[in-house]
């Protein structure tokens, strides 16, 4: 159910402007908070409730077993007494026959035994069966009867006393023996029931322990996975944010919990970082504009000079010129005026702080405009520009100003790296992984030593003397590329030159697929 943890993030487009950033943040906040809440607290409470139910059930079960055990033990006592009375009766019976003691004692014990038996008749019946119980009662009854007969024999004036006595004695013995063995059997059965109950109780405790163990393992595992998974997701998210993907975090699960508040806070942070980045991009651009302006002013001198020379010549020689010559001159005038206009417009377009407009862009055009902006810097350092871009490059999705800022920054860095002149090359190819257009901006300059290669994209990292570089050029450029779903890579050889590769996703491939296949979200 949590496989789709990280889905949906990639689907969002790059924020389009400051107000859009806010709007998007609000929308995502709403989506995050509108989900039904199932807090970790509630989950914990649920687990503890389960534990309580388990313990309560076990306790009640044990209590009931104990109660039964208690009654059983009472019955054992009764059975023992019954047994005892029967034995006593038989002892007195024997004495009577051997020594002629009285029969009253026998009778007393038999009465008591009878009382015990009838007090727990139902219970005994359930243990040994009603039929056996009746037999026992019959034996008891007969035994009593025989004792009475014996008593009558003792009365004076009876015949055949000896014979009758012998006869009674025999029957009495049989019934007595039956009586005792029944009573013994009763006690034995009762005891074995108690043993069974005790066995069950042992089983219950072991079963409880096992249930408890399973439940604890499961709940511990569930909770920790639940929490750890969220922590992992947050870790991945912060990594993504660190890598410059500042699209807001969107809900990935059905329920809202304590982590949701954290995510909402993170989204606000992302919004803030995004705004700051836009400010930084803009201020670094203004710096670049400052640098470009001097060059552009020089560049403007050429068409203006051409216009001045042509216009002056036209006025001077107006009468003596042929129509063709005059036409040629006015054509030059228009062309040169147009050239000036282009130069100015190019710079103004670049400098303008416009709305971010994502659209289908031709990298070739952007590169050409950017190189035109730095044309004078190139000329001053005697750097030759070699732009080798095929006509039909696949379009990329992006903001024109943003992307030209990348190329202007790279070109200015290249110029700085080649104070004695060199070649600035721009070429492009489709990245092997697919979906990316790779534009290579290379120079034949000083190169970058290995030990600072990892730092050059860090904000404020610069090797230029204080006051000359902000160290923001590459960091801003990388930020822009990342916001376009792309990247910037660098290879360099000290003393030979440097190549920066700008990767931008090609428009035809949906951005979401792109990111998945690049293994970024994984």
């Amino acid at each position: 159910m949590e496989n789709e943890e990280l889905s949906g993030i990639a689907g969002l487009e790059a924020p389009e402007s400051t107000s859009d950033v806010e709007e998007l943040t609000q929308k995502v906040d709403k989506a995050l908070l509108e989900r039904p809440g199932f807090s970790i607290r509630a989950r914990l409470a649920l687990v503890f409730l389960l534990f309580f139910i388990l313990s309560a059930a076990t306790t009640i079960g044990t209590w009931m077993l104990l109660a039964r055990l208690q009654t059983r033990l009472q019955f054992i006592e009764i059975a023992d007494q019954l047994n005892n009375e029967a034995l006593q009766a038989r002892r007195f019976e024997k004495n009577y026959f051997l020594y002629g003691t009285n029969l009253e004692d026998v009778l007393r014990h038999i009465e008591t035994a009878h009382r015990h038996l009838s007090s727990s008749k139902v219970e005994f019946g359930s243990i040994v069966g009603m039929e056996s119980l009746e037999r026992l009662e019959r034996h008891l009854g007969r035994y009593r009867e025989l004792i009475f007969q014996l008593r009558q024999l003792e009365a004076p004036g009876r015949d055949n006393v000896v014979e009758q006595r012998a006869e009674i004695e025999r029957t009495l013995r049989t019934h007595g023996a039956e009586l005792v063995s029944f009573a013994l059997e009763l006690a034995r059965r009762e005891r074995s029931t108690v043993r069974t109950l005790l066995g069950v109780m042992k089983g219950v405790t072991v079963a409880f322990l096992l249930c408890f163990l399973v439940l604890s393992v499961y709940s511990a595992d569930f909770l920790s996975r639940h929490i750890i998974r969220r922590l992992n997701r947050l870790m991945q998210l912060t990594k993504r944010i660190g890598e410059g993907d500042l699209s807001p975090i969107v809900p990935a699960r059905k329920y809202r919990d304590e982590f949701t508040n954290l995510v909402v806070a993170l989204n606000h942070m992302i919004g803030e970082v995004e705004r700051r980045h836009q400010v930084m991009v803009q201020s670094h651009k203004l710096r670049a504009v400052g640098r470009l302006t001097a060059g552009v002013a020089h560049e403007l001198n050429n068409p203006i000079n051409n216009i001045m020379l042509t216009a002056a010549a036209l006025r001077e020689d107006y009468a003596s010129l042929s129509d063709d010559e005059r036409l040629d001159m006015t054509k030059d005038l228009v062309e040169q005026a147009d050239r000036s206009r282009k130069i100015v417009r190019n710079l103004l377009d670049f400098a303008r702080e416009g709305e971010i407009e994502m659209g289908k862009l031709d990298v070739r055009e952007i590169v050409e405009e950017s190189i035109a902006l730095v044309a004078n810097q190139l000329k001053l350092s005697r750097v030759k520009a070699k732009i080798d871009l095929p006509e039909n490059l696949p379009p990329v999705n992006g903001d024109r100003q943003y992307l030209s800022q990348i190329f202007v920054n790279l070109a200015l860095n290249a110029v700085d790296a080649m104070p004695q002149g060199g070649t600035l090359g721009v070429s492009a190819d489709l990245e092997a992984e697919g979906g990316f257009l790779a534009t290579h901006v290379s120079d034949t300059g000083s190169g970058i030593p290995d030990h600072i290669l990892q730092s050059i994209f860090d904000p404020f990292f610069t090797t230029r003397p204080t006051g000359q570089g902000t160290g923001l050029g590459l960091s801003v450029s990388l930020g822009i590329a990342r916001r376009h779903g792309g990247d910037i890579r660098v290879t360099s050889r000290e003393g030979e030159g440097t190549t920066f590769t700008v990767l931008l996703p090609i428009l035809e491939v949906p951005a979401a697929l792109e990111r998945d296949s690049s293994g970024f979200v994984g």
Partner: protein
Amino acid sequence: MNERCLQILILDDEPIVGKRLRAALEKNGYAVEVFEDSRAALRRLDEREFDIVVTDVRMEEVDGIQVLEHVLERSERTKVIVITGYATVEVAREALAKGAFDFIAKPFKPDDLRQVITRAAAALEP
């Protein structure tokens, strides 16, 4: 006035500059050769001596200062006039220090250059 007309070489990578200046100066009776490519101009300068060389300072490949040095190595009497962008005062100063006759800042009118050339011509006269 000397009989032989003044030999002038103009070097600027903007084609219109050469085109207009040639017309403007030939009208005054000077012999003008125009180059856009500095290497070709240097080769021509090796072949023969010019009285006056007008060169732009900022060009790809070879810049005006190098042209200036090249010319003066060959013929000290040649007057070199350097065309600069208006903001490059340092370059103008450097050119003068290296022996340029004068400089003229873009944008300029043909008359501005004519005046400088007239002064250069006067300086050429012993």
